[in-house]
């Protein structure tokens, strides 16, 4: 293909270790497995695969900090996941958090609102490096089912570019690429009992994805461009704080949607603002779920389970809070229950793994 020469990405020779040598044990090697599920989220990248019938997950924070490569000479980067692109040093993944403080920066992300960020010129390179770290180069033509969002109904964004770029990354690593809706993946992972009928809602950092799935077929999929980041931003500006500060409190294990209690007044204010914006987000999602359901002529004979997952659904009593909001609406379908996925942070990756295994087995039988 005619094209620009790839960017000059230099190698840190002293740290140049073949990827396979980094593997601690068999369970960390995803490159030789039958199939891989990959959740490509704004905040986290999660891969899931099977080792002796057990699901193993690998996670990397989908973020980076950038500084001049000159700084690399003064730093010990032995155990730091990093890349040098042209004359810039990028600290990637979980280490980015720590280094952001050292450099006095905020972490940056290759993705924004659930898709590849148009604001980060090196987003693709960084995303490629991180996905490669997660799944490695394929040793056989295994399928990787990766999550994609639905087009948002409230923002002028289209998933086509994002999907094609991810497909290119995955195929370049030697895998067969299978894109799949992230909310529908939750239903594949969680709703075998109801013959894969249910409503999956993925509350992510960048957006919230919803899928109404009937007998494994996603009949309605949509997203809204509001998620955890939207909550952080709006809560922060309401009380004159920076979003990072609000985010830290939101991610505390004791953050509870049914109580603002905290020892310090300032923190109570933040918690209160967060709860209000959580409530606003949930009402917005429910209203849009009803509106989208009403657009189609769908008669579903059995009550549908509603499964919620994603990092933004982590606070204490999230399900009870969601149920409370949900019961305020007249919904045009029967629902059986509202519950969390067994593991809300890896449900999308696990659902993608189910899809990837199905594709793999179909390929074998062809």
């Amino acid at each position, binding site marked *: *293909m005619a094209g620009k020469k790839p960017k000059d990405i230099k190698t840190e020779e002293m740290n140049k270790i073949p990827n396979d040598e980094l593997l601690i044990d068999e369970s*960390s090697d995803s490159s030789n497995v039958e199939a891989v599920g990959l959740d490509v989220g704004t905040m986290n990248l999660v891969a899931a695969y099977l080792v002796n019938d*057990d699901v*193993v997950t690998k996670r990397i924070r989908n973020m980076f900090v950038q500084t001049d490569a000159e700084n690399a000479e003064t730093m010990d980067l032995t155990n730091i996941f990093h890349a040098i692109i042209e004359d810039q040093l990028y600290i990637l993944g979980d280490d980015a958090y720590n280094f952001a403080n050292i450099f006095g920066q905020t972490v940056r992300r290759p993705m924004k609102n659930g898709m590849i960020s148009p604001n980060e010129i090196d987003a693709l390179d960084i995303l490629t490096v991180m996905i490669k770290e997660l799944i490695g180069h394929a040793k056989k033509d295994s399928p990787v089912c990766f999550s994609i969002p639905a087009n948002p109904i409230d923002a002028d964004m289209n998933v086509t570019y994002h999907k094609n770029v991810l497909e290119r990354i995955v195929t370049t690593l030697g895998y067969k690429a299978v894109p799949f809706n992230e909310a529908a993946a939750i239903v594949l992972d969680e709703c075998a009992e109801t013959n894969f009928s249910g409503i999956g809602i993925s509350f992510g950092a960048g957006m919230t994805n919803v899928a109404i799935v009937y007998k494994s077929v996603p009949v309605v999929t949509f997203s809204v461009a509001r998620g955890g980041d939207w909550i952080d931003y709006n809560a922060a500006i309401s009380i004159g704080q920076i979003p990072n500060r609000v985010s830290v409190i939101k991610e505390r294990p004791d953050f509870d949607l049914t109580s603002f209690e905290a020892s310090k007044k300032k923190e109570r204010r933040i918690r209160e603002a967060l709860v209000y914006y959580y409530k606003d987000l949930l009402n917005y999602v429910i209203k849009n779920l009803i509106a989208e359901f009403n657009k189609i002529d769908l008669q579903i004979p059995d009550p549908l389970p509603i499964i919620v997952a994603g990092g933004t659904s982590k606070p204490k009593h999230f399900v009870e809070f969601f149920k409370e909001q949900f019961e305020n609406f007249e919904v045009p379908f029967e629902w059986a229950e509202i519950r969390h996925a067994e593991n809300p942070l890896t449900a999308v990756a696990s659902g993608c793994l189910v899809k990837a295994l199905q594709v793999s087995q179909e390929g074998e039988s062809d």
Partner: protein
Amino acid sequence: MGDNRLCKTPGCTNVAIPGAKGYCSGCFERIVKIQQIELMEDIVKLLTQILKEGLNVKGLENKQVTQVVEQVEKHVEDRKIDFDVTDFIPSIDVSDVKVGEPKKEAATTKKEKKKKKSVKSIVNKLKQVQEDK
């Protein structure tokens, strides 16, 4: 399987990729490239026409229009030589991406808790449900 349609370019045996209107990635890139060059050529034609017909373009003098035409022509010529398709579908050659890799694993790896149903039984159920439809 429905996902494995062949590229609709006659003679091409590659698999069509989603979002590429039935083409494989290679053919789709070539089409994008051709369309972009055609677009640029149309712009040049249009600007030349404006110049020749002496249309009264508000705020633009002939000299400025000439300069714009020259710039666009040069741009088209440049793109013919080394067209940057990465503006539309990025080219990612992972084999050329080299990073300073850490001695410890960068990702957090863990074995998930056993679920009520094994993943393999879920996959079998999925196949059964899809066959029953």
